[in-house]
C-alpha cells in the first residue's frame, strides 16, 4: 500500500500537491474545485491590506518556455472579504491563506483579522515582484525574519509559512533567518524576474513592463533553491516552481520538499493536473519500491 500523504508542520495533506497562490484562488468555489480535482492543499489569491485594482493587461502571457505575469495583486482588501472568508473556513481540506502587505503592520493586521476564521495555514507573500516594494521583505534576512516574527506573535496556533523570492544572492540564509524567527515551514520559490519585448510593437509585452517568470523555464532554479534551503533548515519546505508532472514533483521532493506547489501547470494541463501528478508519483514509487512520500524527501542529498 503506497502512502501518498505528507505533512507540513503537523497539517496532514492527502497528497503532496498544493495549488499555488495567484492561480485560480480568487473564489472559494474555485478552491473547492481544486480539491475536487485532487489537490492536497490549495492556496488562495493573496489577501491585501486594501482594495487594489492590479495592473492593466497584458498581465499574464505565455512566452514559449513558461509564463510571465505582472497581475499586480488585485483584490478587494481583507475588510471586504468576510463572505469569502466564511466560505473558506467551512472547507475541511487544508486551505492556505496567502497574505501580503507593504508594511509589517499590514501583515499583522490582516493576520489578526483572519485568525477568527481559524485558518490552518497562513502563507506570507513577501516575494511578489510585481508591486512597488513588494519584494522588500524577502530581499534580506533581517526583514524576512521581522515579518515572520511579528506575524507569529499574533497567529495563535496557525502555521506560518513565508514564501521566498529566488531573486536574491543567498536564499538559504533567508530561509534560516525565517526559521529562527519562528516560521513553521518555507515555501520556495516565488516567480523569477523577467521581461519580454514584442519587437514589432517595440514595447515590453506586459503593461507593467517587468514581471515574474513561472513554468518549466524556472524549474532548475527552484530545485536548486530548495536543495540549498534543505541543507540549512530543519522545518519542512514546499517546493514550488515549474512542476508540470509527477517526475518534476519527485525531483523537487528528492531536493528536499515535503510538498510541491503547482501553478503554471494548470495552464499546461488544466485543473486535472493534480490528479495526473499524483498518479505519476504513485507509479514512480511503485516502480522504485517506495511506500511513503516521507522516504523520498531529500534523498538527493544522501
Amino acid at each position, binding site marked *: 500500500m503506497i502512502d501518498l500523504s505528507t505533512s507540513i508542520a503537523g497539517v496532514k495533506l492527502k497528497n503532496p500537491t498544493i495549488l499555488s497562490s495567484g492561480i485560480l484562488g480568487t473564489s472559494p468555489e474555485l478552491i473547492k474545485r481544486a480539491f475536487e480535482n485532487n489537490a492536497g492543499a490549495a492556496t488562495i489569491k493573496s489577501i491585501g491590506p486594501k482594495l487594489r485594482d492590479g495592473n492593466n493587461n497584458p498581465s499574464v502571457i505565455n512566452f514559449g518556455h513558461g509564463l510571465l505575469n505582472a497581475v499586480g495583486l488585485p483584490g478587494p482588501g481583507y475588510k471586504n472579504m468576510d463572505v469569502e472568508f466564511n466560505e473558506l473556513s467551512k472547507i475541511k481540506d487544508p486551505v492556505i491563506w496567502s497574505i501580503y502587505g507593504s508594511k509589517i503592520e499590514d501583515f499583522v493586521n490582516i493576520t489578526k483579522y483572519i485568525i477568527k476564521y481559524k485558518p490552518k495555514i497562513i502563507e506570507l507573500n513577501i516575494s511578489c515582484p510585481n508591486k512597488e516594494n513588494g519584494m522588500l521583505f524577502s530581499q534580506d534576512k533581517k526583514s524576512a525574519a521581522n515579518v515572520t516574527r511579528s506575524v507569529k506573535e499574533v497567529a495563535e496556533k496557525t502555521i506560518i509559512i513565508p514564501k521566498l523570492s529566488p531573486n536574491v544572492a543567498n536564499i538559504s540564509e533567508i530561509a534560516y533567518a525565517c526559521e529562527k524567527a519562528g516560521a513553521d515551514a518555507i515555501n520556495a520559490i516565488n516567480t523569477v524576474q523577467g521581461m519580454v519585448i514584442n519587437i514589432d510593437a517595440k514595447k515590453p509585452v506586459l*503593461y507593467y513592463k517587468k514581471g515574474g517568470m513561472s513554468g518549466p523555464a524556472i524549474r532548475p532554479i527552484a530545485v536548486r533553491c530548495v536543495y540549498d534551503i534543505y541543507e540549512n533548515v530543519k522545518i519542512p519546505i514546499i517546493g514550488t516552481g515549474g512542476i508540470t508532472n509527477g517526475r518534476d514533483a519527485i525531483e523537487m521532493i528528492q531536493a528536499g520538499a515535503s510538498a510541491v506547489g503547482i501553478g503554471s501547470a494548470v495552464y499546461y494541463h488544466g485543473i486535472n493536473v493534480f490528479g495526473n501528478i499524483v498518479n505519476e508519483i504513485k507509479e514512480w514509487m511503485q516502480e522504485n519500491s517506495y511506500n511513503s512520500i516521507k522516504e523520498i524527501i531529500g534523498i538527493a542529498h544522501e
Partner: protein
Amino acid sequence: MNNMEKEQKVHKKLTIKQIINENYKTKTFFFNEKIDIKPGQFIMLWLPAIDEKPFTLSYKKPAAVTVELKGNFTKELFKLKKGDNLFYRGPFGDGFTASAKKAVVVAGGMGLAGVSLLIENLKKSKVIFGAKQKRDLFFKNRFDMDICTDDGSIGYKGFATDKLRKLLKEEKYDIIYTCGPEIMMKKVFDIAEKYKIKCEASLERFMRCGIGICGSCACGDKLVCKDGPVFNSDNLRKMNDFGRYTRLKNGRKASLQEYHKGRS
C-alpha cells in the same frame, strides 16, 4: 518560421484595412489578416502600453471586430486609422455548438457582434435583436432580424425577451443562443427552461490572462475565459452567480446592477 520564432510571437500583428462607422458610438475595424476562430471564441486585442481586452470577431474573412466606445481602451482604439497596427493573441475559449437545426438567436446591444459569426454559420435561424433605441442599431442591413427597442423608436416596442416569449408560443425551436447584457441573458435562460429548450449563453467577466489561470473571470467555480465564454443549460443551471453577480477589476464580487451603473 522555426519554433523559436513562433514562440517569441506572443502577440501577432494586425493591420487595419478599413474602418466603418456602424452608429454614433460603434465602429467596425477590418484587418488585413485572417484569424482562424470558431463562433463564440474570443481574441485578446492588445494596444501596446495601453491595455489588452477580449473581443469576439464580428466578421471572419477578412477578420473584424465591432466595438462600442466605452472606456479608455476603446477611446484609444477609436483613434487608430487605416494602415495602423495593433496586436492580438488567441483565439481562446469554447464557442457555440453551431450545429442546431432550428435556432433562435437573442442578441442585446453589442451582443449582436458576439453572435454575428454564429448567425452566418447557422443554416436556419430566427434573430431577435434588442436595443435601447433606434440610434443604437447596427448590422440592420446585414442580417434579417426582428428588431425590438425599449422606446419603440423602431421595430417592436419592448424587450427582446418579450418578443422571444411570443415567438415560442407560436413555433417550436431546438435551441436558443444568446449574447448581450447578462440580466437579459438570464431572462432568456429562464424562458428557455420554462419551454424546455436548450440554451447557450456567451458570458462576459473582467478578464486578465485569457488562458484559465488567474481566476479574474471566475463565475462561481467556472472560468469564463477557459470553461466558457459560452455555457450551455447544464452549466448555467449550476452557476449561482449567473444573472446576479460579477467581479470587478479588483476582484470584489458586485451585483450586475452595481456593475452596469459603474460602466455607463
